[in-house]
Structures are given as structure tokens and as C-alpha cells.
């Protein structure tokens, strides 16, 4: 519309100018020749295409002023009979977890299996099996408020967790884009059946399927390495399924951060933060210690856990697969207005140190798509085939991943 209007004005001006020039030449009027020449010159200067000017005008900048990512276009469908190409595509998409499932890994050659294993070891940290205490209330928060009965109740409960792998970093926008671009929101098999009707509501600012804060089905380039936020628990779970993983349980998440050491049957040492027992704000992106928004997942590297997991504390809260129960919280007679899923770790806007510990648990409704909640994935070691078994070994049934063994102690 604007371009049409501009060309009409240019055409009109140039026509008048040429007319004035011709008339002036015919009648021998110098002022008319000068006016016409000036008009023609101005039109040529103002509207003629020039490389410098075009470069300035060319990019279509979104309303917010942010430049959208130059993300890869949706990958061309791979021939399902071409297993080489399929494996390559899955590795490029970060779906090594799926490739290492026993049912699939058997069909890989040694080189492919080695590459999938290398990808797993690079992106995920191994958390050994063992016990972890959940639900212990931080004494600092309670002071003298707890009576003896309450204090006993809030000593927490010990849980045994099986060996599993946990993502070293939260899932980034770049990684999540692979899921969106591969049509993850259209593959209903990835989603809980109960949520099928709501999947259509999981759209970005422009109505395209994707996280809430994206536009046109893609993220802004500056958020490439930042954790994906604005995703509901169901979107997180669907992504995890797509890459052959699952969301970690509460016990798994706490174990990866607090790295408990069992000294005896009744005594164990468990860290308050992944780096120790004292808050050090330089190690985590929390309120007052960061830029007030998410940062790239490789920042705050000093906050790494013993097992090599980054940003468990700060930057974004992380969905876990567990439910938040009113009994998990220290207040008596508490009711949740809606069912909630457990979130852990604190975010860039978490205000209190005591709410950014490995033990602290908060909750959010599973449909919530908040600006400060992201996730990372886990997979049980028993669900993966890390080396080729004998040819006649039995294959376990089903792809649906059970949580790692979690037994109350």
C-alpha cells in the first residue's frame, strides 16, 4: 500500500517535471527549464534504487524491534527406507536418546552407535544410584517457628533413586526449535491423550505452534542459547518423548544437585546448593546477581554440580514429572486451587536465597506457560543400550519410558 502510494507520487512528480522541462525548452523559458531539471533530478535522487539505501530498508524488523532467528527451515522429509539418512537426521536433531533405545540401537551399525553414545556423553551427565532426602525444610527459613512435632515432620523422607542420565544444560530455544520444526505439535502420539484438545492452544505470540514468547513459530536470534521458556508441562513432556527421554522425577532432580553421600544407614551428607552449603550468588543467575532475564545456558559455569550438571540453581525453574502435593509444603491445612506440577531450582527473578536451594520445591499448574519456567530431560540407564548385546538377546517391550527406580527407604 505504502509502496504504491510512493510510486504514484514519484510518477506524478516526474511527469510534472518532464512537462515543465519540455515546455521551457519549447518556449525558450530558462526558469521553466531550470525548474523542470531540478524536479527530474530530485525524483531521480529520491526514488532511484541505490544499494546503500536498500540495505537499510530491506530487513523486515518485527514490531518489537528484535530480529528473528535465521533458523534452519523445516527439514525435508527423509526417505523412511534410507536408514543412514534417518540416523543422521536424528543425530542432528539431538534425538540420540531415541537412537540408543534397545529396540532401535540394535539396528545401528557400530559407527552409528558410537556416535550416538558420544552425543549422549557430551550432553548428559551420569547420576549414580543411591539415596536422597526429599522434603527437608531449611532451618534458616523456619527459625524457632517449628515445634518439636513439626520439626520431626519436616526432616524429610529418604528415597532411593536408580542410575540415570540428566541433561547437563536446560533445553535451549535452538534445541526446542528442532521439535517445533519437525512438526512436534502435530504428532499427537507424543502428547498425553487428555491434553489433545488443548494442544491447539499452545501457540506463540503470532498464533503459530510453539512456546508462548516466540513469533512466527521461531525464536529471536538473541535467545538462541537461552533456555526455552513459556512452555507448559505438557509441551516439556512431549519434547522429552520426542528426543527419547523423559522429565526427571523430583528425587532425581534433587539427587543431581545435592549429590548425597551416605555415611551410614542413618546418616548422609547432602549439599544445599550444587556447589556446597553456602549461597554464592556469583554462581547462579538469581535476582540481583544477573541481568534480570534469562542468560545463555553456558553462563554461570561455576555453579556446576559435582556430577557436571549446569544451572540447576537459577536462570529458570525446571519442570519435573512429579506432582506438587499440599502435604509437601510446610503449611498445615493448605489446598491447591488447581493441580500443580513440581518445579525446582529457582529462576533469574527468584528473590530469596532460601527459595533457590536443591530442596526448595514450588509448583505451577501444568498448563502454565510462564516466562521463567523451562526444563531439562532425563533418561534411565536401564532404558538405554550403550553397547551391542549378543544377537540372540531378548528385546524389552515398549518404548514408553518408566522413571528410574524410586523407592522410599
Amino acid at each position, binding site marked *: 500500500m505504502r509502496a504504491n502510494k510512493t510510486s504514484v507520487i514519484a510518477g506524478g512528480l516526474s511527469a510534472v517535471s518532464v512537462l515543465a522541462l519540455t515546455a521551457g525548452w519549447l518556449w525558450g523559458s530558462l526558469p521553466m527549464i531550470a525548474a523542470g531539471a531540478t524536479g527530474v533530478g530530485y525524483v531521480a535522487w529520491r526514488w532511484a534504487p541505490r544499494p546503500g539505501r536498500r540495505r537499510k530498508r530491506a530487513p523486515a524488523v518485527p514490531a518489537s524491534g528484535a530480529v528473528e532467528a535465521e533458523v534452519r527451515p523445516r527439514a525435508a522429509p527423509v526417505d523412511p527406507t534410507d536408514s543412514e539418512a534417518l540416523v543422521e537426521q536424528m543425530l542432528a536433531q539431538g534425538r540420540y536418546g531415541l537412537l540408543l533405545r534397545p529396540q532401535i540401537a540394535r539396528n545401528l551399525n557400530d559407527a552409528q552407535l558410537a556416535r550416538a553414545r558420544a552425543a549422549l556423553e557430551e550432553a548428559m551427565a551420569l547420576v549414580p544410584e543411591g539415596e536422597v532426602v526429599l522434603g527437608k525444610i531449611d532451618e534458616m527459613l*523456619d527459625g524457632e517457628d517449628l515445634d518439636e512435632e513439626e520439626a520431626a515432620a519436616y526432616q524429610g523422607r529418604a528415597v532411593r533413586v536408580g542410575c540415570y542420565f540428566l541433561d547437563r544444560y536446560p533445553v535451549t530455544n535452538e534445541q526446542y526449535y528442532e521439535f517445533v520444526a519437525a512438526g512436534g505439535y502435530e504428532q499427537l502420539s507424543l502428547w498425553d491423550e487428555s491434553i489433545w484438545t488443548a494442544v491447539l492452544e499452545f501457540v506463540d505470540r503470532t498464533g503459530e505452534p510453539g512456546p508462548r514468547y516466540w513469533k512466527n513459530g521461531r525464536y529471536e536470534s538473541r535467545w538462541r542459547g537461552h533456555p526455552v521458556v513459556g512452555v507448559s508441562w505438557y509441551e516439556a513432556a512431549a519434547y522429552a518423548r520426542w528426543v527419547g527421554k523423559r522429565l526427571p522425577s523430583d528425587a532425581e532432580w534433587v539427587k543431581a544437585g545435592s549429590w548425597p553421600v551416605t555415611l551410614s544407614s542413618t546418616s548422609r551428607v547432602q549439599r544445599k546448593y550444587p556447589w556446597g552449603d553456602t549461597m554464592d550468588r556469583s554462581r547462579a543467575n538469581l535476582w*540481583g546477581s544477573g541481568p534480570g532475564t534469562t542468560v545463555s545456558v553456558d553462563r554461570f559455569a561455576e555453579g556446576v554440580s559435582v556430577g557436571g550438571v549446569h544451572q540447576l540453581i537459577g536462570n529458570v525453574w525446571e519442570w519435573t514429572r512429579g506432582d506438587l502435593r499440599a502435604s509437601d509444603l*510446610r503449611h498445615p491445612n493448605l489446598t*491447591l486451587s488447581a493441580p500443580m506440577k513440581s518445579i525446582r531450582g*529457582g529462576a533469574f527473578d527468584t528473590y530469596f536465597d532460601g527459595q533457590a536451594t536443591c530442596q526448595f520445591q514450588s*509448583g*505451577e499448574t501444568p498448563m502454565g506457560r510462564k516466562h521463567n519456567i523451562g526444563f531439562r530431560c532425563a533418561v534411565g540407564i536401564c532404558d538405554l543400550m550403550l553397547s551391542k548385546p549378543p544377537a540372540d538377546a531378548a528385546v524389552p517391550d515398549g518404548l514408553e519410558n518408566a522413571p528410574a527406580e524410586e523407592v522410599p527407604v
Partner: protein
Amino acid sequence: MTKGVIVPLESARLVEYAVPIACYVCEGENTFDSEFCRYCAAPMALAHQANSQKVHPRMVATVGASGAGKTVYLGMLMDMLSRQPHRLQMLARGAFSITLQQTTLAALARCEFPDKTPNEPDRWNWVHCQVRRPKPRQTFELIMPDMAGEAILHEVDHPHSFRVITSFLKKSSGALILIDAVKLKEGGRNQEFFNMKLISYLGELDDGSKNRWSKKPVALILTKADECDDCRDDPARYAREHAPGLWQQVQERFRNHRFFATGVAGACAVRHSVTEGRVNVPLRIEPHGVVEPFEWVLSNLLGR
């Protein structure tokens, strides 16, 4: 209210008693050893500080219905500005000014909201602080009381029943009006009506001088915005859609106003108590939009 002390018959003391000290809020005359003004119950420490430091603090009112979040907002604001002074720095004047910050933050750290502010003015927390602005560099004094919502409602319905509220609002240079966004969303119109009454009341306080409420900066803060995503995205639109009467009145009454959205708790659960009834319990604390309204009011008062 006023300390009952036995006055010794010393000439020096008698002289001190003979010189009245005006309350900084209502200008009522008090004796030098009064803790609270005998007329309005404002702390006399405000007057003593103003006299001794030769400064005249400005006043900014924080008003709103009961439960709108005035205590949490003020306590959080003070703590944020004292912890992170890049934008504005707030330094308390006198120990009494820190009590509000202390009680609010202690409660929030335990994942609880602070107790309801009592109706009696002599039990309110007052904040007298020095605010420093780095760019342009400016320092000034400010007084902000945490008034009880029910007392404000009573004063609005029965003007002059709380002298401290009348006097303070007359002298205030600007206001932060807190409106519960969740209650607006739920459709109960009490929140809207209360604030409409409050705005009318402010208009009635104008005494014909140049210092009219229609010219003063008024920040309308929609609280608990963490529970209403659309409120957080566009507070003015949210107010127009959910409280059209209030929105219209604001357009007519205040020339210099702006809508803001704020939230302190990321999510809430509910606790049922025999004595208090239904009580919200914050599940985590992540403040948003707390400093912006205050900063906007100050920049209007002091010039950008």
C-alpha cells in the same frame, strides 16, 4: 497515644513544654516528648527529623482496598531499592522506618504474606527515607505510611473520621493506587467501586489551590498480576476491560496517570484458617514491576 509522664517542675522542662511542636502530617500542636500526634496519631519522629535536619520530606500516598497488597508492595519496594541501588537508592531514616521492610520480608521468606495492617493509626508502619537518584543525581526525603485498607475505606465513606488520612492525602505530592487484579478478573465489582470512591474522595480534597490531584502523578498499580497474564502484558487494557467505570473515571480525574502491573508471588496456594478464613500462601517470591511505578511517580515529581 501521648506518653503519660510526670513532669518535674523544672524551668527548662517547662520551657520545652511551652514550645509546641507541630505534627508533620496534620500540623496539630504537640508537646516535645509526644511519641504520636495527639490529633492524628502520626509518629512525631517525622516532625523531629524534619526540624533537626532542616529538610521537608515529600509525601507519597500508597492507597488501596484491604488486601490489595499495600504492605507487601511497600516492604518489597524498600528492600529492592536498598539491595540494588542502580536505579534508585532508598536509605531509611530512623529505626522505625525499617520495621515495615523487616516484617514483610521475614514473612515472604517463610512463604507467607505479612499480617493484615491494623486499623489503629498508631500501629501503622511509617517509612521516612532518603531516596537517591543517580541520573540525574538527586537526593530527597520521602514519607510513605502503610495505611490500613479498612481505615481508608472508612475514611472514604465517612470523611474526616481518620484525620491522619485526610491530612496526609491533602499534603501528598503523588499517589500509588493499588488495585487487586485478580478480584477484577473474578468479576466482583467491589474492587472497582472502592477505587472509584477513592478517586472521588481525592477530588473532594482539592481546596482550590494549584496543588490539585488532577495534576499530581498517580500510578494505578494492578497487583497480583502474576496470576493474570493478560494484565501483565497490557495493564491499561486490562483495566479498561475489567473495570471500565474506574478506567473512565481515571481518564477524567487524573491528567497525569499511568497503569502498571505488579506481582510478587509466582504462584499461590490457599490455607484455611479458623480465625482468618481463606488465606493466600505464596509458593515462591519473584517480584515484577515493583520499582517501575514508584520510579515513574518520582520522575514526575522531580522532573526527568
